[in-house]
């Protein structure tokens, strides 16, 4: 199969993720969309790695996964504590960080 198709898929996934981040209000959903974008990137990296025949992209993908896992831990923790204090998971409710 043509590896370029993977790139198209990755672009599609990234777009879905990005629009999810922009459109949805629920923090969990936004969070999952971010994960979707990350994974779209991973897919791109792997696809390019395959296309160019070197392993750099795949290694970076592993790093991304590790970072993503760490991010999930911290992010979920923040969302949970936010939910506890405000009884809401909407990102628009947490708008105090402004000048």
């Amino acid at each position, binding site marked *: 199969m043509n590896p370029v198709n993977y790139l198209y898929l990755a672009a599609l996934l990234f777009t879905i993720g*990005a629009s999810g*981040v*922009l459109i949805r*209000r629920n923090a969990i959903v*936004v969070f999952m969309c971010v994960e979707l974008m990350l994974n779209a990137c991973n897919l791109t990296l792997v696809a390019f790695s395959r296309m160019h025949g070197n392993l750099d992209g795949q290694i970076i993908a592993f790093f991304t996964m590790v970072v993503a896992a760490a991010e999930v831990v911290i992010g979920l923790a923040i969302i949970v504590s936010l939910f506890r204090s405000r009884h809401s998971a909407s*990102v*628009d409710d*947490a*708008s*105090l*960080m*402004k*000048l």
Partner: protein
Amino acid sequence: MENLIALLVAAPLLGAAVLLCGGRRLDRAGHWIGTVLAAASFVVGAVLFTDMLGKGAEDRTLRQHLYSWIPVEGFQADVAFQLDQLSMTFVLLITGVGTLIHIYSIGYMEHDERRRRFFGYLNLFLAAMLILVIADNYLLLYVGWEGVGLASYLLIGFWQHKPSAATAAKKAFLVNRVGDIGLSIAIMLMFTTFGTFAFGPVFEATGDTSEGKLTAIGLMLLLAACGKSAQVPLQSWLGDAMEGPTPVSALIHAATMVTAGVYLIVRSGAVFNGAPDAQLVVVVVGAVTLLFGAIVGCAKDDIKKALAGSTMSQIGYMILAAGLGPIGYVFAIMHLVTHGFFKAGLFLGAGSVMHGMNDEVDMRRYGGLRKFMPVTFVTFGLGYLAIIGFPGLSGFFSKDMIIEAAFAKGGTEGWILGSVTLLGAAITAFYMTRVMLMTFFGEKRWQPDAEGHEPHPHESPKSMTIPMIVLAFGSVFAGGFFSLGDRFLHWLEPVTGHDHGHAPVSAATVTAATMVVLVIGVAIAWAMYGRRPVPAVAPRGSLLTRAARRDLLQDDFNHVVLVRGGEHLTRSLVYVDHTLVDGVVNGTAASMGGLSGRLRKLQNGYARSYAVSMFGGAAVLIAATLLMRAV
């Protein structure tokens, strides 16, 4: 002998320092310290004079170099003195009249609690004036020039609690500063032209430069002289300067300081000789002031202001004579010296009158004082005869010489100048007779002063009358003494040079004409003020009289154009500085604030709007990268 020159200055300078810094404990002895040091300076001057007389005419000049004042690359200013016949004449006049006036002031200022300081200022004046006349370069002369200006400022404003005195002092200083611009620029011109401003080298080099340069220097020197000597158009300060104590008016504003302009022009003779155009302007200024001062003097009822007008006019004579070139230099100085005697005497007399009349200055409130103040009357009268040029007295000789010199200028110019000086002589006779009649003759017109004290005119104490008597002697005999065998001419000629000119009329004719105009002037005054009683309130008078009372409207012009105009200018500049220059800065600050206020709105706290800007930014970056690659 040379080493004594510095002593001339040092004595009064020491006096000024001691008296001004000494504090109250010197209050009781202060006036004696001041007088003794002034007299010491006179003695030093006399010693130097006798020494000078013992030498031949050519090697009479003494020099003393003290130290290098401002040594800067290409610029050499020294503190160095030069005492030649011209300086010597001034030294004797200044210290002599100065000492007399110190003695007079002991009595005159007796009741003033700040007498010590008065004597300190007088000594300061003497020191500065002596520096002025014995400096050997223009920059040091400038020091004396401004120094006398400072002393004059302090003394005119001596009674500082009177706002009018403070204003008059400030005015005198400011008008003099305008003149000082002239002296500064003249010195700078000399520096760029000759590379030096010491008398000797400059006068030697005048032949090597263009007439245009010399004319420029001459005109600038004239501007300086106009300021210091109260010549038109910078004359306006002298009348107001009469706010000062009368001894000050006698010493500074009659006998010495105001004649510094004449000294400057005569001293710079070498420059003026090479610049006929500048000389012409000098003559015109002298002639105009001569008439201006005389006309003003006719209209004033304040005795000191009338005398101030007369001073202006007499200095006009001197300036005119100085402008005639070598024909007139000697006579300018001779008139200066005799004028120093009789005008100082007249002022001291006026002071004596005021002293006896509760400081009243309005002549319409005098009258008939000759019986009450015999000594003052006689000395004042002799001064009066001298100034109008009564035959045989000082003024007769010196003024006559100037009138002759004016005719000797030759051509139409000579005729015009001669007529102006004759006319001036007539007016002089008129206004001085007027002063004499209104003060000492006629009926009593005394009135109680503001506090209701009736004046009790009385003769002044000895300390005041003795200087007056001495000056009266000078007024009577100095002119004759100087003229006998042309003594004064031979004395000064080595320094100033002399030229007889070509008189179109004989000396005898001129003298006769002078006598005629003198009689006419006196007769008119007698007709107006002697024959009929003087009204105690000034009549309205003709248009000219009213203008003359207001100094021929020159002051009003100054007020409207300079004072008002200046006020408007500074006020609008303050506004401009605040709104425009500062406004630009404040405006920048305000617009920065506004911009940041607007930008702040972007930070609305919504995570998703931040996300939009992130995506937008990323999209722009990618687009830019692609675009760059495409190009």
